């Protein structure tokens, strides 16, 4: 859950799993510089993709 009220407000106005995942991940990356945070958030996107693949692989 994002602790930042601005991010929380965004997720509330644009609800969605991806929005929530990205906001939560970014919330934990606030102290990092933009490039470093982007590298970490890219890993989050990789993870989301893999989870989706794993989920459909079980169909």
């Amino acid at each position, binding site marked *: 859950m994002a602790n*930042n009220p*601005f*991010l929380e407000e*965004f997720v509330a*106005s*644009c609800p*969605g799993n*991806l*929005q929530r995942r*990205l*906001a939560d991940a*970014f919330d934990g*990356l*606030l*102290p990092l*510089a*933009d*490039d470093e*945070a*982007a*590298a*970490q*958030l*890219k890993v*989050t*996107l*990789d993870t*989301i*993709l*893999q989870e*989706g*693949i794993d989920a*459909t*692989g079980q169909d």
Partner: protein
Amino acid sequence: MRLVKIKPTYFRGFGDADWINLDASLVVLHGPNGQGKTSLAEAVEWLLYEKTRRRERGENLSQRDYQGSYRNAHAPAGVTTSIEAVLRASNGAEHTVRRELVVGARNAETSRTLVDGNPADLAAVGIPPDDVFNPVISQDGLQDFIHSKPKDRRDKISAALGLEPLVRFKTVVDRARTRFQSSPPPVVVEARTQLGPVVTAMTHSPRVAAIGQRWGSERFDEGADCGELHRAALAFLQMQSGEWGTITEELNRRRREAAQRVFDDAPIQASPHLRADLQTLELQRGDITITVNALGQALTQFTGVAAAVYTQAQLQFWQTGLRMQVAGPPDTCPMCEAPTLTQAKRTEIQQRINQSGDYTRALQALQDQGRAAARFIQGLVNSASRVYPQFLDVDQRRVLVPLLAENPGIRDAFFHAHDAAQTTYQDSRRLLDERRQQVERIHMLAADPGTVHTATQLAAALAADLDQAVQNLARGARDYAAAYATFSPHLARQVASDVTVREIDGLLLPITNWQYVRVLSQYGCLLQESLDVQHQIEAHIQAKQAALFQTRGQEINDWYDMLNPGAPVRYTRMEPGTDSLTLWGETFGVQINAVACLSQCQLNCLGLSIHLIRALTPGTPFRFVLMDDPVQSMDDDHCQALVVQVIKSLLERGLQLVLLSHEQGLVDGIWDTYYHTQPLRLRISEFVQNGPVIEDAETLERAIERAQGLAMGNEDNRRLSVKVVRRCAELLIRAACKATGSTSPPCSATAAQMLPFFQSCPGTEPEHHQGLRATISFSDPAVHTQPGWAVPVPQQIRPHLDRIRQTARQLNVL
């Protein structure tokens, strides 16, 4: 939350500094440029946020240039760079917060924080990790967002309006998505690699060529594509309905048939279990010695007893003779009728008859071992046949020649390897068959004195013969498998180029590789969804901006107008665009672009206004604002407006203001204007290797001299002189408390409130108390507003100053 004091240690321009007292509502620090003022501003910023905007801006241009720049260049090895500060909360509680620089692998700079001596996030005292409420107005960032690209300006002003987390969120999502697109995860790379040939195959199959074309551009529609593929496969198979499993099975069957019509490669396929079969052969090879040794021992045993016994004919002769002799005289031989059959002779004959029985048993044992060895060799033959193909016949070879006409080199290389393997197999097989037949009749060879030598030679060479044959067979099988592995893809391609096979492949391959379609489809969806999220963040920022420009935009105008009262050429408003932000101004009623047309002084005012509303963002935990040289491009009138209007407004809001400047006039102006608020005046007296030397600029002696000087001036000066007299009384009380170790009065105490603290100082006398009370009463601002009060003349002021000086000397504080 206010700043009480701060202690930078080996940070930026600071060395091992002492605590710097900031405990006043208004703190002004004067110092020349390049002597540590900005280091102090950055110390506060780094303490709160682990970064400074200056460093952040610099790192966007060159990380290398700025790496390691937080740490003072003279810092001794092993000494930690840190900032420590005492903050006072609204309820009066004080907390010591500390940030220590941690330099990790490859000089990566991070930090750790402590609150009241314990490791903790600053959130523990209400300081959020993002710098939405950044209370530090740094000189280098004052106009950077004005003179930047419209998009950057919009982002920076949005950040100043409190939207920084959202603006950063959008920037970071944008960059992360770009990375996700340019460096996809391995699973996507693998899927692309696998799906390439599938797409090629589909373009050769008319029923699914259109889907293949779309997939080639990575445009997938899993549901629709799946249905279309299903229908195409059913139509090809002329089936009304069918599950995927049935369809795949049927397509595979038809493909096999079609491929076999082109060329049936089953006879030349290398063993699919080659590794296991070769292991079996190797294990059997290990048993050769045991088998051959057993046979050799049986042969040796047999030849040993054969030399000592009669032939079968002799044995029969003597057995018959002994039986006949029983009827005649005792020593008479029944054959020659002479007395030669003595008792000794009888014993010898009987012994040799017994030995002939051993011969029979040894012969039987040799025959058994020969049969066992023959079975063992047959086992080798059987294993060898499993690691080899059936080999091409003439007709098959005739088909392959034109089929691989486009690759004669590949084809001929395979034929060569094939023929070599066939020769190896046949030669080894022939040898094994021969040896098997020989060992099967080895007992017959050994029993015949004319062939016993052949049997011995056979047994002696058998182990080496078998071992060599097995090694040849294994090597030949491996060579063939390698050659077939090189050859088979070419053959498969040629087979697949057949029209029917190609059409079946176009249907079959997308079905059997559907998992890769799923991966790429999901990857494409995620890319699109993340792009949508970017757009949503953008739209959200714009909506928030529009609302903020209505409310906080007016605040910017208010601050700007304080600095530019009634100016006909002025900034008027901001207009956000999709990806830009325009700053508008006006000149005598005509709209102009503020960035292009306003003066540096006006833009300085605008920058300061925007930073002020950022520092005053609703919800901020800070009750202080730190300004680092805020009047860079301002003329005297605007400086005066800053002093009289802006600072007044900040103080009236109950904020603590810490202002750093190299402008002596500005510092003096603030000092004189707000002298009644008991401001703290600091100065940088010099800059040494250990950093700036910061000291209290207002000593008791300087204050007395200043009051004396002002007392000789005009009415305004004398009015100010009275204020300085009161300040002298306050400074005397504080100095006395400090010198005697007594409790000091709170910084917000008035002079009258401070008097009891003075009275409790050891060494002070009643006449001191009485004199100071009179001075405080004389300089009390409440009296100055009473009707009839006149500004004192020098003769009225001077006695108070003389008494303060005399008291200070008596108490040894001057």
